[in-house]
């Protein structure tokens, strides 16, 4: 029994079958990659996991509890954090504040009217956020406006914000998309470090095979909304079906 | 801390500022003056609070012209002395009021009660006004009247036609020269009966606010009393600009008279729409369909163009009146500004004169003395014939003009012709008449 169980999920958009009978089990404490060509339904699947979309049929359960019908913030509070394709951070807030928000969310739940005390007087929260920034190697940037940072730093901050919530499952949606090679490598190193040092499950959707094979413990190949194969990276590399469906047309990458 | 509810700034403005207060700060206490803004120097300040922005800005501008003219006449600085010559009371000498030169401040009511109060308060608190006048709607009149009562200054209402001003919202410090809804109804009914007969079905369109309600009630009760039947009365929003949706249902009813209880822009648009829908060409129950506008304003009627022709209504005053007072006023105003005054200008001019005269006769600016001098004061020569300022409710009782839109106007000002001057007896009512019930005058408040 994995930490995340997807069973028989279907999702249609009008006439288009985006997901067809998807079954997926992600085991605890592994890095599980989901790959597939464009339009394979990777993002739709991810959106079904975090509550942005509701599947037409099927079930999604996390640690044995169904996530269906719950809103994104509730699912997040259950222990699933998500990193977006383009970094989603609070651009108008300072880096430190960006990091403090998940700390508050972890401590106070989805809403708390804490309108009188000074943010900076919440020592434990500040310290936790600063500690997290140090881990992310960003302590020197804490007073910067988040939107003024480089894309790589934004990605780093976003991942840090997700980790600050101490999630059980971290979902990454093409975390290196649009990044320069150096930034991509930095991100890979960061994720490796996270994977090694933390008690966390990672699910990653990725286009870049270099990233996938650097990180993944298991890989599911999705094509036309249906899982084709699921196996270890080594086996996937040589799998004929995968070549045909995916690698064949993307070998140029 | 001593109480001085409203300031006596008039003291300073009028030149008392001098050596006395220079060296040491002096704390004024209220003991020094007998009433709010007692003028102690050589001048007295009046506050003219008129709409300068918003839909009634032109009417406000005309009121302001009349006020300026009145001040010139009071100070004796004008080209002539206007109605001072024809006014039955001869207390005013053209040397200011009680020998003090009249100065004035102006403000913008925006035809909003809040803005009007703010403007009036600044006149009282900052400029030391001892009397406030003007305004072009009943909402503003009632709001400012209540303020003046509280502050202890006199309020001489401008154009306000709702019964409430001297009915349920009457105040001892407030006075209205303008006529009201009841009088319109009472004056119109006999004329309408004579022209249109006593067997008529009336359909009312009524502006959906206080003035509309009181006007509808007044016209209904007086026309029903002579035998008319009210088929329907529909309320229309103040903000409406197109009345077609209210006019087409009339086509389906068996009404043969339409009464438009609308003022200003509402009146212009509803009348224009009604004429466009061919209501005036209709024949219902063998009778010509007729339209009635209870309160006419010449300034506003201009906006309806040729549509007013032949339509009956009432008005407080019109420049074509031939009495000496009206002629003197029209001459002064027309010479100075190049066009004849409106009824709003007339009432504001007359109110200023009446106030000045009352002060002169009372020998004091004290509001209570002024109230006493104005209550039950009878006068003549101000354009409406013999007039009584009734003490019970501070309403003027005078003849009311029934007018109709002129068929062949000779100029852009010549829109209305006087059909009948309804004598004052016909429009007089008891102070506790049901349409005016619920108010209490209270006693005068001198403030300070």
């Amino acid at each position, binding site marked *: 029994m994995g930490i995340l169980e997807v069973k028989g999920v279907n999702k249609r958009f009008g006439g288009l079958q985006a997901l067809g009978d998807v079954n997926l089990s992600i085991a605890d404490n592994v890095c599980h990659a989901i790959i597939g060509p464009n339009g394979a339904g990777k993002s739709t699947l991810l959106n079904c996991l975090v509550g942005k979309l509701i599947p037409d049929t099927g079930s999604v359960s996390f640690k044995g509890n169904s996530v269906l019908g719950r809103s994104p*913030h509730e699912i997040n509070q259950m222990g699933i954090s998500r990193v977006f394709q383009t970094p989603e951070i609070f651009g108008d807030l300072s880096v430190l504040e960006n990091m403090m928000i998940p700390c508050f969310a972890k401590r106070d739940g989805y809403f708390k009217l804490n309108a009188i005390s000074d943010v900076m007087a919440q020592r434990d929260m500040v310290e936790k956020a600063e500690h997290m920034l140090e881990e992310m190697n960003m302590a020197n940037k804490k007073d910067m406006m988040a939107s003024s940072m480089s894309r790589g730093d934004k990605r780093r901050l976003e991942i840090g914000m997700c980790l600050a919530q101490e999630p059980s499952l971290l979902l990454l949606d093409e975390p290196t998309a649009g990044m320069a090679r150096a930034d991509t490598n930095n991100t890979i190193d960061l994720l490796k470090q996270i994977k090694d040092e933390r008690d966390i499950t990672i699910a990653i959707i990725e286009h870049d095979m270099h990233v996938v094979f650097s990180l993944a413990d298991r890989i599911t190949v999705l094509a036309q909304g249906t899982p084709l194969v699921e196996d270890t990276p080594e086996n996937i590399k040589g799998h004929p079906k995968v070549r045909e469906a995916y690698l064949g047309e993307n070998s140029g990458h | 801390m001593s109480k001085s509810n409203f300031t006596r700034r008039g003291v300073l403005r009028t030149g008392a500022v001098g050596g006395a207060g220079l060296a040491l700060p002096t704390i004024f206490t209220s003991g020094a003056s007998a009433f709010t803004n007692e003028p102690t120097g050589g001048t007295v300040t009046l506050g003219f609070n008129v709409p300068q922005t918003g839909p009634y800005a032109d009417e406000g501008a005309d009121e302001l012209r009349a006020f300026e003219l009145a001040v010139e006449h009071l100070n004796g600085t004008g080209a002539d002395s206007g109605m001072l010559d024809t006014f039955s009371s001869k207390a005013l000498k053209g040397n200011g009021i009680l020998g003090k030169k009249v100065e004035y401040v102006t403000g913008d009511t925006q035809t909003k009660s809040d803005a009007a109060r703010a403007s009036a308060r600044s006149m009282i608190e900052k400029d030391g006004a001892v009397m406030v006048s003007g305004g072009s709607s009943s909402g503003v009149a009632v709001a400012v009247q209540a303020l003046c009562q509280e502050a202890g200054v006199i309020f001489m209402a401008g154009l306000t036609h*709702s019964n409430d001003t001297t009915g349920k919202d009457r105040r001892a410090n407030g006075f209205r020269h303008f006529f009201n809804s009841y009088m319109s109804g009472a004056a119109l009914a006999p004329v309408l009966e004579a022209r249109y007969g006593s067997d008529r079905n009336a359909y009312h369109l009524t502006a*959906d606010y206080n003035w509309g309600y009181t006007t509808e009630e007044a016209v209904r009760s007086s026309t029903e009393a002579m035998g008319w039947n009210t088929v329907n009365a529909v309320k229309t929003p103040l903000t409406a600009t197109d009345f077609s949706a209210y006019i087409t249902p009339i086509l389906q009813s068996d009404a043969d008279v339409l009464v438009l209880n609308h003022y200003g822009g509402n009146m212009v648009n509803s009348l224009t729409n009604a004429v466009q829908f061919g209501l005036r060409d209709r024949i219902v129950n063998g009778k010509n369909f007729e339209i009635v506008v209870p309160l006419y304003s010449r300034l506003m009627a201009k906006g309806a163009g040729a549509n007013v022709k032949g339509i009956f209504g009432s008005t407080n005053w019109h420049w074509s009146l031939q009495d000496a007072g009206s002629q003197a006023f029209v001459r002064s105003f027309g010479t100075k500004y190049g066009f004849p005054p409106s009824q709003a200008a007339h009432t504001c001019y007359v109110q200023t004169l009446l106030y000045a005269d009352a002060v002169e006769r009372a020998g004091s600016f004290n509001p209570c003395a002024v109230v006493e001098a104005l209550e039950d004061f009878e006068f003549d020569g101000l354009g409406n014939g013999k007039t009584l300022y009734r003490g019970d409710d501070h309403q003027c009782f005078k003849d009311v003009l029934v007018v109709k839109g002129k068929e062949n106007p000779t100029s852009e000002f010549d829109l209305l012709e006087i059909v009948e001057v309804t004598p004052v007896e016909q429009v007089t009512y008891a102070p506790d008449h049901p349409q005016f019930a619920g108010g209490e005058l209270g006693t005068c408040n001198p403030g300070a």
Partner: protein
Amino acid sequence: MTDQTEQHATSAAPAASSATQSSTKVLGLGPKDFKLMFLVVVLTMAAPFLLNPFPEGSAMAQFNAGYPDLMQRFVIFGIFAIGFNILFGLTGYLSFGHAAFLGVGSYAGIWMMKLLTMNVIPAIVVSVAVAGVFALIVGYISLRRSGIYFSILTLAFAQMSYSLAYSVLTPITGGETGLQPKVADPRILDGALEAGASPRANLFGLEMGAGFEWQVGNWLFTFNAGYYVAAVVMLVAFYLSIRIFRSPFGMMLRAVKSNQQRLSYTGLSPKPYTLAAFVISGMYAGLAGGLLVAMDTQVGAERMFWTASGEVVLMTILGGAGTLIGPVLGAGLIKYMENILSKINKDILHEWFFFLPDGFENLMVELVYPFIGKGWHLTLGIIFMLVVIFLPGGLVEGGQKIAGMFKRGKDADASKTTPAE
């Protein structure tokens, strides 16, 4: 973010945390905020002096604003704008119907004065409470949408409130003529009025109209009890708004404005945060409405018209949305124009330009006349345009630019002189 410390004084920009940590707090405020608060306290307390800079009887006395009514309006509309800014400045939700809460608060207040007592405390408390409940209902529904859809929903509620108050609700609201306390009202907590006395708003016997005047030379300063009551309330409201801006709640609101998606995926629900901000700002509006009634005992439906809602939006943007002091400045500027400019008439212009030769005098009067008196709207429109074109951050940015110029000027002087020495 070139000048962190400078910006912090007035804007919601994040506290420079290191600075805040190391310094001690007074009243729970960081040193910059405390300075600002202190400045506002001094300004409001000294307003009767500051707003009356010109001696009585002088030509410039026209520009004096130190009389009770306008001083009261400054602080009351300041409260209204501060509250609006908590919603708009922090969350970015543009409500176009805030005047409804002010109006509802006013009606609640005047009814307290008619039924209970002329003491302003119950009136103000009930105003805040009723406006809060109304804001909760309107906010709960309107916040289901965002952006302009939200704005139109709030506008729709406010316009409905206005229309109904002006017409069919006349028995409750007084409609066109509004409501004023009358001698005959029940007022169950007050004793009977003396014969001839009219009901006056008071604070445990201290009448809002009471006060004294102080003459210094040709200057006359008015100290009005009502103003100081309103000013103290404004200071409390301002202090609370600083605390809200600096609190975790305030941070969450800025996060709502910045990125709602990230907020949801951080386990926080934007809705209760925005709703709380909406209700708080509705209560501020109700407080302003209650104070308006306490200072000037009447209510008219026009204060709920959409232009009144628009006015508070303009005040906030004009002053600088999202800054602490901006909305108060914007409110002051608009109310000043409305009350001072509109009262200047041709006679006064002639007085001003009296010293010129006749022809020039008339020319000057004709040139200036369209912009004052009945033309004050024109000036207001031009100011809106100039401010937004040249000072995108509102008046606060203007202030910062001026301050910056002084600083740079000093620096430049220093750099010029240093090498010489």
